[in-house]
């Protein structure tokens, strides 16, 4: 929980150094929460927000929503649906890839083929 809040605060403060629109008050207004609540989230005094708010926060801060959700201890609904359809397969796959380097994991993703042109 603390990790999530610290990360959000670091990102927001970094943006605020260049743009005052990234104050707690203004960011909170843009993601439809109270400034006091966002402040508590950043300090780790309350649990991370809902999935919808975390996704809005990620968009606001220019961060990857899946990464922010993972820091919040959550998995996005669409990923949950994918796993629920083939839970055994995806559980095995994720465990098998646990120690693989990023490059090896990315190879599993379908690449756009470049042809002859």
């Amino acid at each position, binding site marked *: 929980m603390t990790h999530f809040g610290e990360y959000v605060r670091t990102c927001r403060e970094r*943006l605020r150094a260049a743009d005052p629109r990234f104050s707690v008050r203004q960011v909170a207004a843009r993601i439809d929460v109270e400034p006091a609540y966002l402040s508590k989230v950043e300090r780790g005094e309350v649990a991370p927000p809902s999935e919808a708010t975390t996704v809005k926060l990620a968009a606001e801060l220019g961060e990857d929503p899946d990464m922010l959700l993972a820091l919040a201890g959550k998995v996005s609904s669409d990923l949950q649906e994918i796993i629920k359809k083939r839970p055994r397969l995806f559980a095995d796959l994720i465990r098998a890839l646990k120690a693989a380097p990023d490059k090896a994991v990315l190879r599993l993703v379908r690449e756009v083929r470049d042809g002859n042109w």
Partner: protein
Amino acid sequence: MITLEGDKLHFRFPEVHADATCTIEFQRTLRIPDDGKAYPLPPGLGSFPLRHLDDFAPRVPARWSERGGVIMPMHQAEAMWLNFGHGGWGAEDGYPFAVKIAAGKINAVTGEAWANHLNRDPQDYVVLPKQPWLDGYCVAKGFIRQFVAMPLGEGYSAEEQLTGAGEHGGVQLVVYPMKAERWREILRQREAARRRPLGMFSGAPRYSASTEPMAPAAMDMSLAPGGRMKQEIYDDDYGLDAWDLRHASRCFVTIANSLAWLAIAGERPPTLPPSAADYAKAGLPWFDYYGGDAKALDGAAKLAALKSVAKLGQEKGASPLPENEPVTGERVIELGKRATKPVREMPALATKPLSSPS
């Protein structure tokens, strides 16, 4: 490597640096009037659907399959712009890339024929993240001519005007990441600046597809120069030496006539956007972007000499652009450099549809 995720091309270079990630998507937009006036930036109306071309191999011409890449639909006389993004970084902070863009294998910045390598003099690429968007052919310093889709073979495309042949169509991309050591140096400089006192750090219902082969040449679309728009293409202030020329990813984006999209992909193409006049009448915003003190490139003489779709149509005795009436009184929102990339889209897009021509 390039992956296709949610109608967006993701370019990743994990062998260069973990941060080396950028995205390119194709935004639907208004076609600005092709009347000689220079218009501000039109909004983004959502992205065009992008699909792996290989998924439709039995239903597309063999020459399309041969070039690989992705495929998207466009209506005749529809406009689009390229939206550049990057993963997990603000507009000013992202990993830099040099990106070459061509249509019909004619470079959109210089008007020269396609070449995979980068050229500095004249610069034939855009630099990310400094360049947030590209809306058309660079015809003069601070001005472009909007990308407008026209059927290949009718003579309107930049490719046909410059080469006399309509062979390729589509859009071509090649992306080069910055060298990892140069990026690490930038990060070191940013960290040092951040540690300085006084806060000096400044650093975004499905339809069944036909099983019949779908191959008429008229389904191949290319991009032609449309109306004039204010947009700067920024100079590369890193220099050619900054780019990792050993690592590049390229992609051919085939543009299929929207009339063929249902038969090819089994899904309806997006509806036509509203006309520029309807949009302006509704009081919805247009945009201007100021890149701060970034230096803009001069236009390319070859591209400046191209005839716009309306002018060429007039010479042919044709009216290729419906609803080309001039627009006045645009409400312009100024966007500038910010810590996150400014958003260029119509507000309440989903809740306030405008009447659109069919």
